[in-house]
């Protein structure tokens, strides 16, 4: 799915960062993203994303800086935080265990 006029940072909220690392495959739908100010292009699969990121390594001036920061963290490794349902489940379990 191609999204238009969406800041890169906003795109990231749709896709877990862990799925953006080079070692993981991902679906086309989940990696459609738009670069700020129209460069370089949208990307629709992981290999294309890697190519775009490599291009970004030379600091394309038009790339949104916020998006660049987050994407760099994706490339170089970033744990994810618990999703809300996971945190709730973990909290329920651990409090139960502590009180048992």
């Amino acid at each position: 799915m191609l999204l238009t006029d969406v800041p890169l940072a906003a795109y990231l909220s749709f896709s877990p960062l862990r799925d953006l690392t080079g070692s993981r495959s991902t679906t086309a739908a989940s990696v459609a993203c738009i670069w700020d100010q129209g460069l370089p292009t949208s990307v629709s699969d992981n290999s294309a994303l890697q190519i775009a990121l490599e291009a970004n390594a030379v600091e394309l001036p038009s790339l949104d800086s916020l998006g660049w920061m987050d994407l760099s963290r994706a490339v170089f490794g970033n744990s994810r935080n618990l999703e809300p349902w996971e945190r709730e489940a973990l909290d329920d379990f651990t409090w139960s265990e502590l009180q048992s």
Partner: protein
Amino acid sequence: MNFEEAAEKSSVIRTDHRVSFIECLRKIPDFSWTVGQPNSYFDRVQGDFFKEFPVVYLNPAGDPVASRKHVMLVNNSCDLPPERTSMVTVAAVFDFAKYLKSLDGRRSPEAIKNHARDVRENQISELLFIPTLAGFSEGAIVRLDQLCSVGYALLDQAVKAGSRIASFTQSGLYVLLLKLTHHLTRPESSEVVRPEAAIESVTGTPTS
């Protein structure tokens, strides 16, 4: 978390340990090499696991919840000699199999499977997964966001009572350090904004 990338950059990995550590990292998702028998040279080191250790936490209502759980010792080994501290920090250890069981019906089997995979691969910031620990058939999870301070005397008693059940291997300790580093000191997101007024209130110096 890309452990190998982190290992290459981390200053806590001794240079002469780096190659063997990376060899271990390339076994991931197998983390069975992280924990072994209690350290035979020192009776208390960072990351040691103790059974039936007293812990207390404040629940969301503010009430103390006291328990006896298996724990992991968080303190740096250098701070563990008796003359160095009066308090130690521990993290409770939970049974991964029981946790997985508690997830039944909370989400789709696929979602639970994915969550379990991420835990096992140590990809969740606040969780440390230990696959092999006595008494935990499918491994154990340590909540790095759920720490508890207790008096040093309790650690001393546990050591003397022989309650220590496991220690980290050298490479396993590095995994712990990377996890702690990442969880507690990872770079702040660029989305986090600190208003100028907040900076001023801390420094006492007007910023403009």
